[in-house]
């Protein structure tokens, strides 16, 4: 047993298995983390494999010892059973993989979608032209912020919660019915990356107002100009940033 523990080959195998167990079972148990998707597991395992190979090949003697069991399997007459078993197993796996690849199977068409498509320079809001470039949230200059945030909170809970959720994480009770999933404002990839004018545009025009690369035919985001006034939308924008703690991106002075 101890000989196995010292042997670089079995150490490598052990490390590999351990890494897999950690990624698949331990990480999801950590607070604040989720199930690791299989594509990511594959990436991690590839990284781990490369790391292990670098480690075993780093030292000539270790590399030689590492290769030994592999070589043994290939040539030792007493390991004939193992050798043939491995050959058969690999062959079968390849057969199955090939079958699953060529089997006629119609997949859903790829859903290539631009998450933050380029906004237009101006939009028409209920007949009024609004220039988005350089546009700031006007409510930030209208006295106390708190009443505007409170108004935004009311509007959010009356309209946005079913999809975007109480935690603003896109996991409202209707979220699972839609594809694409509703935006997660807690994620650093959404409003944290955007100017308030962009967020205003997305709320005002919704899914139907997306350019083609945003797959407007799939988005369940309503065009809120049908429901809310300009100021109401701006107050929701304020609330989104206030509640999540993100700061909106600002326009460079030169952009004006």
């Amino acid at each position, binding site marked *: 047993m101890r000989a196995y523990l010292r042997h670089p080959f079995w150490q490598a195998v052990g490390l590999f298995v351990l890494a897999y167990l*950690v*990624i698949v079972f*331990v*990480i999801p148990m*950590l607070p*604040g*983390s*989720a*199930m690791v*998707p299989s*594509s990511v597991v594959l990436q991690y395992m590839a990284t781990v494999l490369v790391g292990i190979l670098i480690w075993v090949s780093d030292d000539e003697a270790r590399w030689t010892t590492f290769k030994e069991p592999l070589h043994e399997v*290939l040539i030792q007459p007493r390991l004939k059973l193992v050798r043939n078993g491995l*050959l058969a197993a690999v*062959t079968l796996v390849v*057969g199955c993989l*090939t*079958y699953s*690849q060529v089997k006629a*199977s*119609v*997949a*859903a*068409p*790829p859903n*290539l979608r631009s*998450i*933050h498509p380029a906004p237009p320079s101006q939009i028409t809001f209920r007949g009024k032209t609004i220039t988005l470039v350089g546009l700031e949230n006007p409510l930030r200059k209208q006295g106390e912020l708190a009443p505007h945030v409170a108004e935004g*909170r009311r509007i959010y*809970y*009356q309209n946005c*919660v*079913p*999809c975007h959720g*109480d*935690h603003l*994480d*896109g*996991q409202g*009770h*209707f979220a*699972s*019915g*839609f*594809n*694409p*999933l509703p935006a*997660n404002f807690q*994620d*650093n*990839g*959404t409003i944290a990356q955007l100017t308030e004018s962009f967020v205003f545009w997305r709320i005002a025009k*919704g*899914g*139907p107002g997306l350019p*083609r690369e945003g797959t407007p*035919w*799939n988005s*369940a985001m309503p065009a809120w100009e*049908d*429901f809310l006034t300009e100021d109401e939308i701006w107050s929701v924008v304020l609330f989104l940033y206030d509640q999540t703690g993100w700061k909106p991106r600002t326009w460079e002075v030169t952009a004006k």
Partner: protein
Amino acid sequence: MRGRGTGEGGRVMRASVAIAALFVFVFALPVPLPASPFPQDTSAGKAVYQKWCAGCHGDNGAGDGPGAKHMIPPPRDFTGAIYQIRSTPSGQLPTDADLLRSIDEGLFGTAMPGWKTRLSDRQRRDVLAYIKTFSSFFADTTQRPQPIAYGSAPGGGGGAEALKVGRQFYDSIGCRKCHGDQGRGDGPSAPTLKDDAGHPIFAANLHENWRFNGGGTVEDIYHRLRTGLDGTPMPSFSDLLEQKFLTDEQLWRVAQYVRSLSPQEPPVVRDVVHVPLAKRLPHSPDDSAWTAVDVYWFPLVGQIIHKERWFAPAVTGVWVKAVHTADSIALRVTWDDRSASPDTSWLPFIGRVLNTLDSDDSTREQPAPWPDQLAVQFPVTIPSGMERPYFLMGSAGAPVYQWRWSSSSRTAAVAGLARGIDRFDPLGAAAGIPTQAVYDHGQWRVVFTRALASADTASQLPFRSGRAIPVAFFAWDGSNGEHGTRMAISTWYFLALDEPVPARVFISPVLAMVLTLGLGMLVVWRAQQKTSYRKGRQ
């Protein structure tokens, strides 16, 4: 604004952070962990409450926040200290652990999410302490909630004999009065049900255990039977044990029977419905040919995109099966619905639903005996790229082809073009889709049949095999006040009609296997050659 791509990105991000955290954790292990449990701090809890809870539950905990009139069931009113999910007998307060569980896990099938991963341990304990300040009952130190002592489930729960016993007592203790003969929440008393505040409440559909407020395991169900769901019509059945009308084992059998009505695992959405090729088309919903066909589940949610929005849909999803022959297709859509509408006995219930919800409409609508409806939607032609019409009933410029079935004319669905949610142009009687429908104990099963080819290829989708055909579903429960734009909707999914299996499907794997085996043998042979060569030189 964000697709599934970023969702994954977010998870990758979290996973990376988690790995980093793991390393830190491993290296920092000798440091003792902070003492637990935390003391509860109601003033810190108030801050958490006002930020995350007041939007629905209201600043004063009365369940009247701005979001309250946009959901059924409505948010809990904390001022009465009446809680559904408890470990304590009916009428008692919940324990802290009970409340924490509801905060942590949320209440399934409602708008209440789980906060375990969203707030820290400390925040959740603090907010729990604060929620208790809304009712004077909690301030009374003589109120010591005593959890009911539960045994564990008797074995053999999944066996036919146990389920038979469970079913027997399901009937004899009257579960069917509300939950219905088959457990779909369609019992004779179902239309009369309301909660303490007079809001409408559905008897749970026992076939959807993933939506049971307090959890869907056998233990959860048994606990609910023992404690009842205070504030709702669901009573406690503990007295039956105490007065020896029922043994504990028999009550467990009821729980096991109820559990057996739902699938082992909650249904998982698979985007593409595979439509096998059959020799014969099953026209009837209960044709035995359907049993061999794979079933797909699609969730439906409220139409909250267009005026008039609908925040409380009754149909939670559809189960879909489809087969085709060389020239025709049959699509069977199954969904649970507590009544075969129009049903006037549900009119008061509709009234309560309309009263509970805020409406986009300034005038409150009067209840009417609306029918149940289902629409199946396709594009007018199979799209070649990824572009397709707007999922919510198309648009003026890009219509969709729909089959609209109504319980008021069960034998045919109207085919037509929808050009947006409020415009549907029927294509005429000749284009109608023959349907066969049954309503069976809280469930509709409707089979739509049509020829693959169509007379008018520009407006009536010609079905072709080997292509992903976008499909979407819409459902209306008339007895929940649903009609017009008030409905449950799905996003786009796909149908894929199987083609006859070509020979290459079997040849390629064989070729690959031969090659692999040959290569493997070559490697072995080479290695052995080298070794014997070396041995020979020695």
